[in-house]
Every structure is written in C-alpha cells, then in structure tokens.
C-alpha cells in the first residue's frame, strides 16, 4: 500500500485546520457579543445583561481553550509536513504567523483573566474594558491569519530570489488583493456563527421555560443580527467571488462547474463534474444566470476550467459541491432571518413553537458553512500552495514518507477524538447546567487559577472549596 505524502499531508492539514477554525470563528463572534452585553449592562445597570454575559463568558472560556489547544498543533504543521514551503516563504509568513501568536498571547495574558475571573472583583468599567479588548484581540488574531491565508491565494509585495521569498513591500503583501474580501467575509461569518449559537441555546431555554426574560432578549438580538447579516454575507460573498474571478479564474470556474470559456453560462444547481471527461456528466442549471451574476450581462464571457492544464486543475467536484453546501446554508440562514421577522411582526416571536424547535438544530449550520467555505477556497487553490508560485509538490517536506504522514494523521485523529469528545461533553454540561451556575472565581465557586478552560466553572460533583490566599482581592 503506497500513500502519497502530498495527499495525506493535505488531508492532515484540512483535518486539523477544520477542527481549529470552528472555534475561533465562534469565539470571535461571541467575544463581540459579550462585549456588547457588558456595554449594555454598564449603561443600563439591568441585571439581565449581566446574567447573559456571565453565562456566555463560561461558554466562551471553554471554546477559547479548545481553540488554543488545536492552534498549537496548527503552528507545527507547516514545519512538519510543509518544510520546503515554510523555508521558502518564511521571510513573509514567519513574521505574520508569529504576530498572530503574539497577539493571541498578549490578549490572553493581559485581559482574558480579567474577563473570566474579574467580574465583581474589578470595577465595572475595567471589566467592560477587558471585554472590549478581548473582542478586539480576537479580531487582530484573525487579521494576521487571514493576511497569511489571503497572501497564499493572491500573493503580492514579494518576489522569489534563489528559491527564497523576499518581501519587497510589507503593505502590498499584507493588504494583498483578496485580503479585504476574505477578512470581511470571515468577520461576518463569525458574527453569524455567534448569533446562531446564542439564538439556538436561547430558544432551547425558552422551550424549557428557563430564565425567560434574559433569553427573550438574547433571542431577539440574535435574530436582528441574522436578519441583516445573512443577506449582507451573500453580497460580500458575491464581491469576494468577483475578486476570485479576477485573480484565480480557474478556482471560480470550478465553483461554477464551467469547463469551457464561453458566454451565456448557466448557474448549475446540480452537476457531476468529471476531470477525465473534462466536462460535466450531468447538469441542471438556470440558463445564463452565472454570466449575469459574474459579468452583469447574459452573454458575458466566463473563463473555463480547461484554461488550465489538467495537472493544474483543482479537484473540481470538491470545489463545486462544497461551494454549493456553503451557499445553500447561506440561503437557509436568510430564510431563518425572514421567518423571525414574520413572527416578530405577528408578535409571536417568543411563543414556543416550530421556530423555537428549529433554532437549536441550526446551531450546526454556520459551522458546516464555514468548513465548506474553507474547503472551497483551499481546495480551489490546488495544486498551488502559493498561487502560481509554489505548488504542493514543491512545498511538501522532502523527507516525509507516505506511511509517516498516515501514522501521524491517524494519531491526530485519535487525539482529537478524545479531546473534542471530552470538550464537547463539557460544553453540553455548561449549557445543560443553565444560567444559574456560579461564576468562575466568585465566592461560591471557590478560588480559581485563572485559565481559559476553567472559566467554564465547576460541573457535576465538584465540591465548592475555600478561596485561595491572595485570589483577586
């Protein structure tokens, strides 16, 4: 049995990055929501805001911790599996990725502890400030990561000299052509993710009749968010698509399933793309719609996949279907927002019913959409690591054999299975425990070392204990 180290390494990266990305995308949105709740509490003094903030901070702590754990694995992937790429692109990607780490740690060191354990112990203004800084910090972290990723898609401000990349302009490289679109798309995705999780949990609590007043407020806020952001995301996605058309035409052609450069390209709803046939075995589409969307003319010309030689074509089926999964969920989100609006106008938003029973199931939707979106853009870059500059085969670790890559892939899967099962179970315990649980670091919870995961507070049979000497007083 021969394994291809390049393929297995790509699978491994896809695996660890998918399991990593779902946490930041959630915590970025949630951090902003917590900051908003803190701000409302600070301004109005209404204890309901504090109650919500208290609960969601617990969830945030666990999700943030799991994001950090999986992030550590990510930071080693470049060196273990893509060492030639790491070496060749280090002059740019090294500092950029390091800045992400530096930002994340700065944030954790300076403000996270105050947010998680400082409530009732530091002045309210200080706590609000910490919440805002954590929210800002998550965005700065995302900024650096998306700079690195965007640059791999649309490299700029750098040139290869003797196989090593040298930065010619930091601003051009950092603000590369696809960065603004990608960053906005991701930021809105994280707000949507946070909104759907909070809406789902709030709806579930309302069905249970738990803390009704606070959860009504939360549900209402999230549905306003979804109503405006879900359509906005479609528009941003459209702009991002036009940017991809300009810089990565082959990827866009694969997303559309369009093999030949032609006019009046249909928007395919369903197709079976085949690389062997260099065409679709079967397709159902809306005539000319893809041309209209991409060029604003029914007879506009859209480039085809076969502009690139078969060796330089991405895996068309994967790009085509993951893109449809993402877009499909996007429309589902718009529908949820409208459904909420209709109920609101009928003054039935808070009445337990089908809508409230649907929302908890929608918690998974944004996560699936995010992973599908990443799969679309990343596999659409194939066979390039750095678009048009460095291929997978050139970037992979030369000494890596197929079996080593397989062993480590199975190993990471096993480790993640245990860790994430435990983490998921624990998150479920936090939600199931309801909103009356004690605050981490408050007196009844005992004194806590201030660490992200512990922010979830005690569960199960953990006995309260006396405060430690010198704890946050």
């Amino acid at each position, binding site marked *: 049995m021969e394994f291809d180290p390049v393929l297995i390494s790509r699978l491994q990266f896809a695996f660890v990055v998918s399991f990593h990305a779902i946490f930041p995308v959630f915590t970025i949105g949630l951090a902003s929501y917590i900051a908003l709740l803190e701000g409302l509490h600070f301004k109005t003094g209404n204890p309901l805001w504090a109650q919500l903030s208290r609960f969601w901070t617990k969830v945030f702590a666990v999700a943030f911790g799991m994001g950090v*754990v999986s992030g*550590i*694995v990510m*930071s*080693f992937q*470049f*060196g*273990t599996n893509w*060492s*030639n790429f*790491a*070496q060749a692109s*280090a*002059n740019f990607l*090294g*500092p950029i*990725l*390091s*800045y992400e780490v*530096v930002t994340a*740690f*700065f944030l954790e*060191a*300076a403000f996270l502890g105050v947010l998680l354990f400082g409530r009732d112990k530091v002045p309210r203004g200080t706590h609000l400030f910490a919440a805002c800084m954590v929210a800002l910090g998550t965005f700065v972290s995302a900024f650096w990561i998306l700079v690195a990723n965007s640059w791999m898609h649309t490299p700029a401000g750098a040139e290869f000299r003797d196989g090593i990349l040298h*930065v010619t302009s*930091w601003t051009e490289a950092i603000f590369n052509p696809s960065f603004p679109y990608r960053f906005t798309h991701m930021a809105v995705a994280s707000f949507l993710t946070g909104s759907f999780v909070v809406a789902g949990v709030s709806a579930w609590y309302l069905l249970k009749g738990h803390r009704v007043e606070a959860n009504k407020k939360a549900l209402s806020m999230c549905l306003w968010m979804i109503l405006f952001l879900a359509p906005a995301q479609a528009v941003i996605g459209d702009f991002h698509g036009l940017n991809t058309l300009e810089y990565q035409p082959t990827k866009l052609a694969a997303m559309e399933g369009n093999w030949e450069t032609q006019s009046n390209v249909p928007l395919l709803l369903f197709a079976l793309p085949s690389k062997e046939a260099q065409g679709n075995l079967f397709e159902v589409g809306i005539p000319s719609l893809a041309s209209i969307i991409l060029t604003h003319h029914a007879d506009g010309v859209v480039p085809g996949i076969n502009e690139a030689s078969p060796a330089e074509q991405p895996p068309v089926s994967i790009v085509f279907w993951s893109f449809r999964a993402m877009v499909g969920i996007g429309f589902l989100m718009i529908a949820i927002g409208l459904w909420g609006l209709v109920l609101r106008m009928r003054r039935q938003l808070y009445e337990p019913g089908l809508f409230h029973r649907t929302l908890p199931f929608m918690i998974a939707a944004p996560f699936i959409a995010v992973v599908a979106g990443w799969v679309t853009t990343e596999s659409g870059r194939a066979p390039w690591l750095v678009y048009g500059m460095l291929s997978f085969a050139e970037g992979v*670790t*030369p*000494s*890596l*054999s197929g079996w*080593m890559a397989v062993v*480590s892939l199975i190993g990471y899967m096993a*480790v993640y299975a245990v*860790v994430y099962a*435990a*983490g998921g179970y*624990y998150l479920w315990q936090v939600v199931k425990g309801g909103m009356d649980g004690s605050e981490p670091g408050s007196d009844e919870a*005992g*004194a*806590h*070392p*201030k*660490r*992200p*995961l512990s922010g979830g507070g*005690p*569960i*199960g*049979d*953990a006995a*309260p*204990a*006396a*405060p*430690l*000497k*010198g*704890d*946050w007083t």
Partner: protein
Amino acid sequence: MIDFTMIWAAIIAFGVIMYVLMDGFDLGVGILYPLAPDEESRDIMMNTVAPFWDGNETWLVLGGAGLLGAFPLVYSVLLPALYLGVFLLLAGLIFRGVAFEFRFKASRERKHFWSVAFAGGSAVAALAQGIVVGSYIQGYQTENMVYTGGAFDWLTPFTLLTGVGLLIGYALLGSTWIIMKTEGPVQEWAYRIAPKLLAGVLGIFLIISFWTPLVDEFVRQRWMDTLSLIWLLPAGALGCAYLVMRAIRRRDEGIPFVATMGLFVFTYLGLLASKWPYVVPPDYTLYDAASAPESQAFLLVGVLFVIPVVLAYTAWTYWVFRGKVRAGEGYH
C-alpha cells in the same frame, strides 16, 4: 547596522530556557504523579501547578513562532527530522493540558482515566523534549538546507538516554517545587524522593558528558580547545547539585528549587557553548539559518513589546498564588 540575528538568538535562547525551567517543574509534577503516596497528595500536587501550567507553555509557542520568523531553517529542518517525535510531544502536551481541566470535573471512575492521561502525557512530553536535545547534539543529515535523513534518526541509544535524563531532571525540578509549595506528608515524601532523583540526574549527566565527545567530533574539538573557560559551566552545574543536596539535608524549602534551576541553567549554557554558533548542527550556523534582516526587524517590534507583558503577567501570577498549598484548598 544592527545585528538582528544576534538579538534573535538571544531572544530564542532566553525563551527556550524560560520554557524548560517553567514547564519543566509542572511536567515534573505530572511525572511524579504515579509515585505519589495517595490521592489527597495528588490533588495537592495538582493544585500547586494549576495556576501556572498554561502560562508556562506560552513560552513553547512563542519560541516556535519566533523560530519560524527569525530562524526558519531550524524550523524546516528540525521538525521534519523529528517528525514522529513532534507528534508525540504535541499529543503528550494536549493530553495533559486537557487532563488538568477534566480531572477535577470528572466523576470518580473517570478521574482515574484523566490521572493516567496527565501522568502519561507529562512523561511522554518530557521524554520527547529530551530526545530533541539528544538529536541536536548528534546533528542532522542535510543537503542544500533540506533534511535528508530517515524517519527514526532521532531514535538512538544516545537520544533515549538524553530523553530519560531530561525526564528525571524534570522530575527533580518537580520534586523541589513540591518541597517549596507544600507541607506535611506530601513535602516529607518529596524530601525523600528528591535525593534519589538528583543521583539519577548526576549519573546520566556524567554518562552523557563522556559519551557526547564520542558522538560528536565538533564538541570534542571545542572542549579540548577552550578547556579552561568551557569547563566552568559543568563545574557550576555540579556546584548547584551540591547546593541542592545540602539544602535538602538542612530541610530548606526554597533553596532546593532555586539550586535545581541553577543546575539546569549551567547545563543549558554548557550545551550552547559546545555547539556555538551552529543552530542546525553540523552544517548550519545562526547566520545560515536566519531569515532576511527586514523580516527579523519587522517581527522584533511586536516581540519586544509582548515579552515584557508576558514576563509581567507571569511574575504577577506567581505573586498572586504564592505561599503553601494545603489539602482541600483552592482549585477543583
């Protein structure tokens, strides 16, 4: 012209020793875990490191990120060379980190599972780090700045010995930490076990010292050339070992830990001095491995800003959680 490469060498060297000293004692506590007299002692041991461990691991990630930014060659040769070892290290660190959280939250029968994960993860991570040190002394087979050796070149009798050496060294650091942070039966037990660990460390230290020149020609040359100066470092290490022993006999509480840290620092400096200026032995020096000056400068701005913050935060955490940890106290 500022020599950014030198500045970065200093930063990374500092980051590595910070990591070894700080994560060393909490890994050590994990390694000693199965040997502890009873469950109550284990809870107390956990509580002594609970506030600190993830802050300690910060230095590993900062070091890794700094390497990619400032010395990419180290990153792109060592990680492929140690491929499977790196996986073990990460798996160990993840398991113990998660075990920390879940052990206190688990029911009685699951608690045992997380205890095993904590001890096993700590031991595997420590062993893997010791193997990295050994492989560094051995050197790496490279061609044109690319690793060309095999999948198991890092696994030799010599690297296994350095692995076990660091494992016992961390256990010693852990035991002296326990002496400093506890009282009563746990402390008594730590006082009993520390001299045995110290003897183990010294034994391996001696074997490695005789073996290293046989493994590596360059080190042999270096030791013979600069005889007078470089031998101060192992002498300092032995001096620290004597201080540890004396302090344990005199029932001092803080000095054993401080002197053990000294032992580590001298050994570390000895290693650096033996290999200087090679960072990817035997072929590449600091300057060969460095990234472009403009990249080093760009990253330096952020790192110089963040290191004082991390140091201040670390110091403050240790200050807040100072003093003895007693049974049934604190963390759950």
